[in-house]
C-alpha cells in the first residue's frame, strides 16, 4: 500500500522526457515508452469497459435484473473515470506551468460534474432497489447468467492487464485503476450469484446485490469528487492522475464513505408528497403515530410507514340488477348506485379488511329492508326520494356500527322495474288507467253534446207554443172585433140585413148541391122517397 504523501510528491510530468524520480536519459526513454504504454493501456481499458457497459445493459433488459443494471452503471462510471485519467495524461504531457494549471482546473471542474452524475446514478439504483415492488420479475435467468460470465471474464482480464501494465510502467494510477477493476469483478460475481439464486427462489438477493453495486458506484463518484475538490482548492494535479489512487489505499475510509453514503441515500428516500384531498398516516413499527396533512411529508425509512388515503375522493359502489321481494310479495328488479367517501382515514385503513365490499353489502341489505316493507306500486311510481332517504340512513347506520370510517354521500336508484316476465302485465295496468280516463272523457263529451241541444230544443218548443198561443188569441180578438162591428151594423136594420145575409149565403151554397123541390106535403110526412135513376141527371138541377 502506498501512502498519501508519496502521491503528492508524484506530480504529473509536465513535459515529455521529465521523470518524476530519475533524471538521466535512459530513464527518460523508458518513461516515454512507459507513458505511451500507460496511455495505450488506459485507452484499451476504456474500450473494454464500453463493451462491458453495452453487454451489461443488454443483459439487464433481457432479465429485468436491477443488479445487472447497477453493474452497467458502475462500468459507465469506470469509463468516465478512466477517461479522466487519460485526459489527465494528455494535459500533463502537452502543457505546463500556469496554462497547465488552468486546464487542470477545468479538468477538475469537469471531474466534479461527472462525479455528481455518478452520484445521481447511484441514488437512482438505490431507490429502485429499495422500492417495494414485486421481486419475482426476473426472466431468462439461465441464459443471462451464462452470458454474464463473459462480463466477468472481461473484467478479470482488464483488471489483471491494468495491474500488470501499471506495475511495469510504475504508474500508480494505473495500478489503482486495476485495483478498482478488481472490486468491479467482485461486484459482478455477486450479481451472478444473486441471479442464480433468484432462479432458485431467493429473489430478494437481486436487490441486495444492486445495493452493494450502487454503493461501489457512489464510492467511485465520491473519490472523483473529493479529489477534484481537493485539487481545485490546492491548485495542483489533475483529477485523473490521482483519483484512482487516492482512497483505494484506505480500505476503512471506503467502508466509512460507503456507509455514510448509504445512510444519506436512505434518509433521503423518506420524502414523499401528499396531494391536496389526501391524508397521510404514519405508522412506526406498526403503530399509528401521526396524521400528515397535504404537502411535503417525511418519514424514517423502514422504521416508519406512510399510507395516503384520498379522503376527498368520491368512491362508488354499484349494486347491479337484482330481484327484490316487496311488502306485498311481488318481485321488482332494482339497480342501485352508492357514492361514499372516507371520513376517518384511520378507521378506513385499520378497521375493515375490505371497506368497498362492506359498503356494497350494507347498502344491499338496507335496500332489501326498505323494499320489503313497501307495496310494489309505491316502489314503481311512488315517491322515490323517501325510499332513497331511508336506504341512505340505514346504510350509514350500518357503516357506523362497523366503525368503517366511511360516510355515504348519496344513493341512486338507477332503475326500479317489474321483472321482465311480468313487465307486460304492468304496462297493461297503465294502459287500463288510460282507457278508464278515455271512457269517462268520451261520456262527458257525449253529455256536452246532447244537453245543450236538448236545452235548445226545449226552448224552441216553448217559444213555438207561445207563438201559437199568441196567434190564437190575436185571431180570437180579431174575430171578436169583427163580430162586434157586424153586430153594430146589423143592429141598425136587423130585418134587412138578416134577409140579405141569408139569401147571399144560399146563392153561394145551393148551386153546388143536387136539389129536389117537392110538394110541402111530401116533405112534412115522414115517408120513403124513391128517386128513379134516370131522374138523376147531370143536367137536372
Amino acid at each position: 500500500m502506498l501512502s498519501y504523501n508519496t502521491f503528492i510528491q508524484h506530480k504529473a510530468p509536465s513535459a515529455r522526457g521529465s521523470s518524476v524520480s530519475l533524471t538521466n536519459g535512459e530513464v527518460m526513454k523508458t518513461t516515454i515508452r512507459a507513458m505511451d504504454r500507460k496511455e495505450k493501456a488506459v485507452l484499451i481499458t476504456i474500450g473494454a469497459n464500453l463493451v462491458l457497459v453495452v453487454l451489461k445493459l443488454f443483459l439487464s433488459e433481457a432479465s429485468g435484473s436491477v443488479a445487472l443494471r447497477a453493474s452497467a452503471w458502475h462500468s459507465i462510471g469506470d469509463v468516465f473515470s478512466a477517461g479522466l485519467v487519460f485526459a489527465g495524461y494528455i494535459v500533463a504531457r502537452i502543457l505546463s506551468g500556469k496554462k497547465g494549471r488552468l486546464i487542470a482546473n477545468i479538468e477538475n471542474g469537469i471531474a466534479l460534474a461527472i462525479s455528481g452524475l455518478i452520484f445521481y446514478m447511484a441514488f437512482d439504483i438505490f431507490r429502485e432497489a429499495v422500492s417495494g415492488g414485486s421481486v419475482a420479475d426476473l426472466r431468462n435467468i439461465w441464459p443471462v447468467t451464462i452470458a454474464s460470465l463473459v462480463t466477468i471474464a472481461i473484467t478479470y482480464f482488464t483488471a489483471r492487464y491494468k495491474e500488470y501494465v501499471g506495475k511495469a510502467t510504475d504508474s500508480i494510477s494505473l495500478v489503482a485503476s486495476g485495483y478498482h477493476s478488481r472490486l468491479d469483478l467482485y461486484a459482478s460475481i455477486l450479481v451472478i450469484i444473486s441471479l442464480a439464486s433468484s432462479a432458485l427462489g431467493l429473489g430478494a438477493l437481486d436487490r441486495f446485490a444492486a445495493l452493494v453495486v450502487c454503493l461501489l458506484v457512489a464510492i467511485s463518484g465520491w473519490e472523483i469528487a473529493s479529489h477534484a475538490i481537493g485539487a481545485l482548492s490546492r491548485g495542483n494535479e489533475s483529477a485523473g492522475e490521482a483519483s484512482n489512487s487516492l482512497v483505494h489505499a484506505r480500505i476503512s475510509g471506503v467502508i466509512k464513505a460507503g456507509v455514510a453514503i448509504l445512510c444519506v441515500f436512505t434518509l433521503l428516500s423518506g420524502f414523499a408528497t401528499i396531494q391536496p384531498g389526501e391524508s397521510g398516516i404514519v405508522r412506526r413499527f406498526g403503530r399509528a403515530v401521526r396524521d400528515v396533512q397535504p404537502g411535503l411529508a417525511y418519514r424514517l425509512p423502514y422504521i416508519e410507514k406512510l399510507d395516503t388515503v384520498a379522503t376527498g375522493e368520491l368512491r362508488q359502489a354499484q349494486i347491479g340488477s337484482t330481484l327484490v321481494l316487496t311488502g306485498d310479495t311481488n318481485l321488482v328488479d332494482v339497480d342501485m348506485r352508492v357514492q361514499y367517501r372516507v371520513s376517518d382515514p384511520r378507521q378506513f385503513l385499520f378497521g375493515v379488511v375490505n371497506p368497498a365490499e362492506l359498503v356494497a353489502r350494507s347498502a344491499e341489505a338496507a335496500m332489501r329492508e326498505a323494499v320489503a316493507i313497501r307495496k310494489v306500486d309505491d316502489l314503481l311510481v311512488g315517491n322515490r326520494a323517501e325510499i332513497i332517504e331511508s336506504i341512505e340512513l340505514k346504510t350509514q347506520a350500518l357503516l357506523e356500527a362497523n366503525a368503517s370510517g366511511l360516510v355515504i354521500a348519496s344513493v341512486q336508484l338507477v332503475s326500479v322495474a317489474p321483472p321482465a316476465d311480468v313487465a307486460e302485465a304492468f304496462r297493461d295496468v297503465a294502459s287500463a288507467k288510460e282507457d278508464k280516463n278515455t271512457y269517462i272523457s268520451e261520456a262527458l263529451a257525449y253529455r256536452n253534446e246532447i244537453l245543450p241541444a236538448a236545452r235548445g230544443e226545449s226552448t224552441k218548443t216553448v217559444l213555438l207554443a207561445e207563438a201559437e198561443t199568441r196567434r190564437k188569441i190575436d185571431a180570437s180578438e180579431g174575430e171578436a172585433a169583427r163580430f162586434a162591428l157586424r153586430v153594430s151594423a146589423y143592429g141598425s136594420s136587423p130585418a134587412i140585413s138578416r134577409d140579405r145575409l141569408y139569401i147571399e149565403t144560399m146563392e153561394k151554397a145551393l148551386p153546388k148541391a143536387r136539389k129536389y123541390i117537392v110538394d110541402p106535403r111530401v116533405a112534412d110526412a115522414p115517408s120513403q122517397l124513391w128517386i128513379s135513376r134516370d131522374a138523376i141527371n147531370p143536367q137536372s138541377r
Partner: protein
Amino acid sequence: MTIKRGLSIGFPALAFLVLTLVFFTVDTTEYAIVTQFGAPVKVIEEPGLFAKIPDPVQSLIRLDRRLQIFNGTETEFLTKDKKNILVQAYATWRISDPLQFFKSVRNNIGANLRLADIMTSDLGAILGRYELTDMVTTQLEQTKLPMLSEEATKLISGRVKPYGYEVTDVRLKMLNFPEANRKSVFQRMRAERQQIARQLRSEGTEESTKIRAAADAEKTTLLSAAARDAEKLRGQGEAEAAKIYSAAYGKDPQFYKFLRSLESYDKVITEGTTLILPSNSELLKYLNPNGSDLR
C-alpha cells in the same frame, strides 16, 4: 487483504440479515403469534417492534384483526308457514381471541368454512320460526326483519365464540323465492295485474255509462218539461181565445148563431149533397105564384 475486504463488505450484510431475522414489526391491523417448533408461545396483541429467535426455531404467524366479511351462498329455507324462500346472508366477524383462533381454525379460510356451516344450520332454525309475512309486509309495524338479524347475530356469534372469533352482524343480502317457485309468483303477479287492469277498465265503463244515462235522462226531462209548458201555454191560449169569443159572441148570441149557421151552410153543402127543399120554404117562397105575399 482480500479476506479483510471481503469481510468488511460481508459483515454489514450479515448483520443486516441477522437483524431482519430476529426483529419484526406487528402492524395495527394484525395480531401476531410466535410459535416454537409449531407450538404457540407468545401472543402479541399490540403493534410495535418485537424480537424472536430466528426461523426455524421460532416462527411468526400473522392474523388480520380487522373486520372481515363473509358472504354466504344462496340457500333455500322453509319458513314457519311452510313457504320456500331463497336466502343469501352475509356476516361481519373479527377475531376475539387470537390464540384460540389459531388453535381451532388456524386462519381465515378455516374460520369462513366453519362459519358457513354454522350459518346454514342456524339460519334455517331461525327462519323456521318466522313467517313470511314477518319479513315481507306492507304494514310497517309488522316487520320483524331487524329482530331476525339480531337473533341470528347473537346465536351465530355465540356458536363461533369457542373458535376464537365473534360475529358482529348477520344480515340478509338477498331474500327471494326459489327458481322453481318464481314462475308461479310471476303468474300470480300477472293475474293480479290483469285483475287490476280489468277493474280499472270496468270502472271506466261504469262511470261512462252513468254519465251518458244521466245526460239522456236530463235531456228527456228538459224536453218533456218543455212540451208540458208548451201544452200549458196552448191551453192557456185556447182558454183565453174561448173567453174572448164567448165575451164577444155573448153580446148577441142569436145573431152569432145566425151568422155562424150561414157560414156552415156554405161549407156543409158541397158537390154531391142532395137537398130536398119543400116548395114553401122561405127561399122558394116566391116560386109559388100563389103563395107570394108581396107586400
